[in-house]
């Protein structure tokens, strides 16, 4: 029961965060929200027992790819036009 509640919470948060990261006009905030998405995925992997995948998701997804996205936005306009 507790595990199902945890899963349901993470999965519904994932949907919210995924929609948010597309809806937000400020690209830096969008990148940060995308990092949150990766971290939630990491929690989900860890909960399923795929700890190696969770570790990769935490380092690559939540860590370096957020930094790389922000480094790229640094050279662009921060606000999305459309």
């Amino acid at each position, binding site marked *: 029961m507790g595990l199902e509640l945890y899963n349901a919470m993470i999965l519904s948060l994932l949907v919210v965060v995924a929609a948010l990261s597309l809806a937000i006009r400020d690209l830096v905030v969008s990148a940060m929200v995308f990092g949150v998405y990766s971290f939630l995925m990491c929690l989900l992997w860890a909960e*399923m027992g795929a*700890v*190696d995948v*969770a*570790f*990769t998701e935490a*380092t*690559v997804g939540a*860590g*370096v790819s957020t*930094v*790389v996205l*922000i*480094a*790229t936005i*640094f*050279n*662009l*306009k*921060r606000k999305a036009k*459309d």
Partner: protein
Amino acid sequence: MKRTALIVVLLIGLLLAWAARDFPSWGDPDAPASSSPVSSHFIASTGVDTEVPNMVTAVLADYRGFDTMFETVVVFIAGLAVVSILRGGPRRRTRDREFVVDFEPDLIVTNTVRLIVPVIQIFALYVLAHGHVSPGGGFQGGVAMGASFILIALAWDLKTALARFSIDRCFLVAGLGILIYAGIGLFSMILGGEFLDYAHLAKILPVSPEMARYHAMLGVEIGVGFTVTAIMFALYASLSTDGRMRDGL
């Protein structure tokens, strides 16, 4: 246009959600992934063949070593492509920047980073070296190691980080990583086995064939770690400066 895209996305999402009903439930023993003879073979023989407790590492670095080697090559080529495309591109985008790089590093930030970088690097080495026993391995350790260099670039400036780890050195280290991986594979071929058949390394190492596979896995993980560390930093350096390698974030 946007509305059409939204409708298409929603339709495909519904289709995927509908298709997901056919998935076996989580942890189902009758699921194809659990009942396949390949899975039971790996579960039964990993410990016997290689003495590696972490099955994931054994499958990645040994049974599917060829796959992982070319994954490393993919990382290398991706980094090479990003750096060379950005370096050759037109010089125009600087004026679009909304932020000015503050060249005075912050005292608190730099001192915190000074404290934390050695810890991150030790942890990265631990993750790399302990990948057989606990979760981790070359990719994760390499990314953590690369992140420590990115942190140096963020706290001071890119010039400080590039003075320690220049782009040329990045690609030297990245290529060296692949050479280590392929070299171990080639070495086991010279000793009479197939490419990446580590058990034959036991002929020159003072260990059993099982332990030879164990140690060779550490060797290839170190190769992967080299490549990933270097490419992660090269990617950051290139993307944050638009390929010019100066005035970066």
